[in-house]
């Protein structure tokens, strides 16, 4: 095939993937069509993967094969957990998604740094991607740990919690901005990664076990936004579309679940405002 034909195949399958993801979400919101929704999601994912694999940049398949085999070996048992353990499984699975986004951002930074191709825009998108990716990674691990009761489920709080957390995030964002201005300061990169990992942990520890499903859905939304940032980094539209669908539907879903639990204010859904959800929570202590 000529390069142009390959390009058309890739973009065509991305287009199909995007449409299938939209159908998948729509079908899954009604019980009669829900199973068709899963099928559409699977087909969409297959289309996106096939479209990517024919890409001329992909020259070697051996490490991809290794990754796929390892992922399948871990993924299949993970899907056979007891149904009561589904929330922790979802959280754990998020952690993997966040990790993937963070690692891709790191790898792309290293490559572009070596080739001297870091523009301000690329750097900014990478910073957003790794902050969201790595905070989703540790945040989801913490959420899974709390649900599995590996770590104490009660909210852990300390003085000036919000202030400290936001300061950490602000430092990470500030370091990201500095890198945008001066991309060659690579020593700032591990700082951003470390702070994002830490922020993910601190974000979750003040939240009680009963609120976890809402938080997981919110973390899902962050993972989606991180995929969007990755799409801007790699100039890939299917990443942007699927990530944006995921980002907004995850956000709306957490708002809906908040309402279902009689938390009218959407601000309660933001994981960082732990204070407004702490006082009247006898239910979370009962767990």
């Amino acid at each position, binding site marked *: 095939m000529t390069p142009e034909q390959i390009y058309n195949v890739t973009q065509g399958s991305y287009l199909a993937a995007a449409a299938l993801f939209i159908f998948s979400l729509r079908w899954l919101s*009604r019980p009669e069509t829900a199973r068709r929704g899963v099928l559409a999601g699977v087909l969409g994912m297959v289309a996106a993967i096939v479209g990517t694999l024919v890409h001329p940049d992909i*020259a070697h398949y051996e490490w991809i094969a290794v990754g796929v085999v390892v992922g399948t070996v871990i993924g299949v048992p993970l899907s056979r957990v007891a149904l009561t353990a589904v929330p922790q499984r979802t959280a754990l*699975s998020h952690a993997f998604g966040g*990790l993937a986004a963070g690692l891709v951002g790191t790898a792309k930074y290293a490559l572009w740094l070596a080739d001297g191709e870091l523009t301000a825009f690329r750097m900014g998108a990478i910073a957003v991607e790794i902050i969201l990716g790595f905070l989703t990674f540790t945040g989801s691990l913490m959420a899974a740990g709390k649900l599995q009761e590996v770590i104490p489920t009660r909210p852990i709080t300390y003085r000036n919690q919000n202030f400290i957390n936001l300061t950490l995030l602000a430092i990470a964002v500030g370091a990201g901005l500095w890198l945008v201005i001066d991309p060659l300061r690579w020593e700032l990169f591990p700082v951003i990664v470390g702070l994002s990992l830490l922020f993910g942990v601190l974000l979750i520890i003040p939240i009680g076990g009963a609120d976890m499903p809402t938080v997981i859905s919110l973390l899902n939304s962050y*993972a989606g936004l991180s995929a969007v940032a990755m799409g801007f980094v790699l100039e890939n539209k299917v990443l942007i*579309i699927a990530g944006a669908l995921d980002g907004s539907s995850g956000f709306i879903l957490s708002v809906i679940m908040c309402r279902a639990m009689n938390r009218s204010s959407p601000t309660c859904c933001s994981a960082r405002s732990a204070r407004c959800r702490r006082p009247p929570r006898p239910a979370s202590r009962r767990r």
Partner: protein
Amino acid sequence: MAGLDLWAMAFVFMLATFIGFDVIRNVSRLLHTPLMSLTNAISAIAVVGSLIIAGEEKSTFSTALGTVAVAASVTNIVSGFLITDRMLRMFKRREPGK
């Protein structure tokens, strides 16, 4: 040219965000958990980026990170879709008895 493409991506992002808000607005309450695990599986779209990084083999460092990223996102995809389907199968069995 590059600038134009950037704006096109920004428009795509904006439109897809609104679609995402809209498609699940009227989700049935029964389906909150399955929907959550489906969106989780879809967020594994990061596999696309992981495949590119792992397949380019530009440096040892990036290939190693890419391979781990492929493994992580494939885990996410496989378990996400399988468990959503499993949950929904349970629903189906219960429904006729209602």
